[in-house]
């Protein structure tokens, strides 16, 4: 499959059509979806209509937009009007949202063709897609391994060539970790850069929508389209979206790259080797390397597993069998609420709801949730200090290459540790990008992570592009 950049260019020039590109994408989905379980729903009818609209605009001499005719896969926690949306949960089986997420409206306005909804850990709670109520997704690089998660379906859609682009959401690493495990580019933008309107909420102060792509350029193209202020999301940043493509070849000459001890410690040797190689590549491109320690990162996992479940327990209170989704009948409304939630939620979701309920309950609020919010302040200040000495930070994305199914399901804490290097950025609200760099055990891909201060996406993409070039990508 061609790059998104190439497809949009050719569709705009009239040398290919949106319908032809959609056919290519649907053929790839038909060939592999049964084996990999990437899509929960393929919206052939809606995609066909969107592609026809693009082709009609081109025929009429009009410009359909920056993503003209590019097939895009959507994580199934993004609401799309009239299209089944489950968030990977039984409790939303059969639900068709009455409105579309802002990101989907922006995709359509830019000429993109949404092709369907991808598998994910239930309500984005997981790091492997194994908590999905609809079975796990398989990693296209090795079907015996997990694709990572929670946005594993969206990562697999791009890694398998089903679509050149996809959208995921990242609350504690749910875009970057699967990107690393599937060998593609994944971006967690600055909190508030992309509207969350229409994203099914998990932990609202941490959730952020972002792109998956096969290249840094394609990721920048997609992020430019979806970012920017939205009055429908009150946490959306007020300023206009940054220009990324114009700065893609800015390089890192004269920049200071900080290698963060806490963002590599405990990683497997193959991952460490990739981080070392990335460090050398950035240095070769003219960056100055500084070694840094941000000890607060060690508290990130604990703070995250109090804050995110606390917010989730509140957000998921809405699934009560009244307004949408599943209802299990019972004699009165309270019994109906409880029967519905007990039947509709899976074990990981129940675990996190209970953890959050406990952290917020009388007598424990100050000791757990209140303390975690203060640690978050310390994390933000620690990163701010680090950025006095570095322009960009470098670390690992995940501690290991893609792991086997079942390996981390028995003990929740071992699964949670998959996100130990990605969580600090979500707590800080800052952007980060995972770029494939080298390979590890079994020839599986390794991702390295670049981090920057809030709103520094342009610089981050330029640094990511340096790594991509060092990798031999034109």
């Amino acid at each position, binding site marked *: 499959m061609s790059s998104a950049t190439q497809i949009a260019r050719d569709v705009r020039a009239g040398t290919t059509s949106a319908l032809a590109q959609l056919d290519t994408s649907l053929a790839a989905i038909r060939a592999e979806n049964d084996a990999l379980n990437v899509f929960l729903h393929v919206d052939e009818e809606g995609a066909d209509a969107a592609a026809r609209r693009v082709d009609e605009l081109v025929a009429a001499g009009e410009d359909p937009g920056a993503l003209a005719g590019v097939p895009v896969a959507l994580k199934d926690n993004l609401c799309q009007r009239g299209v089944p949306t489950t968030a990977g949960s039984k409790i939303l089986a059969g639900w068709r949202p009455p409105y579309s997420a802002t990101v989907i409206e922006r995709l359509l306005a830019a000429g993109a063709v949404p092709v369907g909804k991808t598998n994910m850990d239930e309500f984005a709670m997981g790091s492997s897609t194994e908590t999905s109520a609809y079975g796990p997704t398989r990693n296209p690089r090795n079907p015996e391994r997990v694709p990572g998660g929670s946005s594993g379906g969206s990562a697999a859609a791009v890694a398998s060539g089903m679509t050149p682009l996809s959208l995921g959401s990242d609350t504690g690493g749910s875009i970057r970790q699967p990107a690393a495990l599937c060998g593609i580019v994944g971006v967690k933008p600055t909190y508030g850069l992309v509207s969350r309107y229409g994203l099914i909420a998990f932990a609202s102060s941490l959730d952020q929508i972002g792109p998956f792509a096969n290249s840094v350029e394609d990721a920048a193209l997609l992020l430019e389209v979806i970012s920017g202020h939205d009055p429908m999301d009150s946490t959306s940043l007020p300023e206009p979206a940054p220009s990324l493509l114009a700065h893609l070849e800015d390089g890192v000459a004269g920049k200071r790259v900080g290698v963060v001890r806490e963002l590599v410690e405990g990683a497997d040797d193959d991952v460490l080797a990739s981080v070392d190689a990335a460090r050398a590549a950035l240095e070769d491109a003219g960056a100055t390397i500084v070694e840094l320690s941000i000890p607060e990162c060690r508290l990130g996992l604990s703070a995250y597993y109090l804050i995110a479940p606390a917010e989730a327990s509140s957000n998921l209170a809405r699934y009560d069998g*009244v307004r*949408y989704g599943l209802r299990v009948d019972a004699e009165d*409304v309270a019994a*109906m609420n409880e029967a519905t939630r007990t039947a509709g939620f899976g074990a990981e979701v129940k675990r996190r709801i209970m953890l959050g*309920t*406990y952290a917020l309950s009388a007598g424990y609020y100050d000791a757990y949730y209140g303390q975690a919010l203060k*640690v978050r*302040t*310390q994390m933000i200040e620690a990163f701010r200090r680090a950025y006095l000495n570095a322009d960009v930070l470098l670390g690992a994305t995940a501690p290991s290459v893609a792991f086997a199914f079942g390996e981390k399901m028995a003990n929740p804490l071992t699964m949670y540790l998959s996100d130990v290097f990605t969580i600090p950025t979500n707590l800080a609200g800052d952007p980060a990008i995972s770029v494939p760099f080298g390979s590890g055990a079994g020839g599986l891909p390794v991702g390295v992570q670049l981090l920057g201060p809030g709103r520094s996406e342009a610089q981050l993409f330029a640094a990511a592009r340096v790594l991509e070039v060092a990798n031999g990508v034109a």
Partner: protein
Amino acid sequence: MAPGLSREDVAKVAALARLTLSDEELDTFTEQLSQVLEHAKDIAALDLEGVIATAHPFGLVNVVREDELCASLDRDEVLAMAPDAEEGRFAVPRIMGEAP
């Protein structure tokens, strides 16, 4: 801080969260939630007197807009997705007991 949760703690939390747990689930969740809280003890033990709590990373507060009429979701489309509806409203089983 209690170094672990009791079965009774978990049963109470499940009731607050409107979840029914089997005896077996109660055992499993008690063990698993205790492990996570054990990990979180590093935070509970910190002296953070005077540190301000963060709810939004960039400090946006009280975002308001003009109180203008604008389109809302289509009522029929919304109710069509509800488990039960009647006369333009969501319908639920009885909330109150029978009249005495």
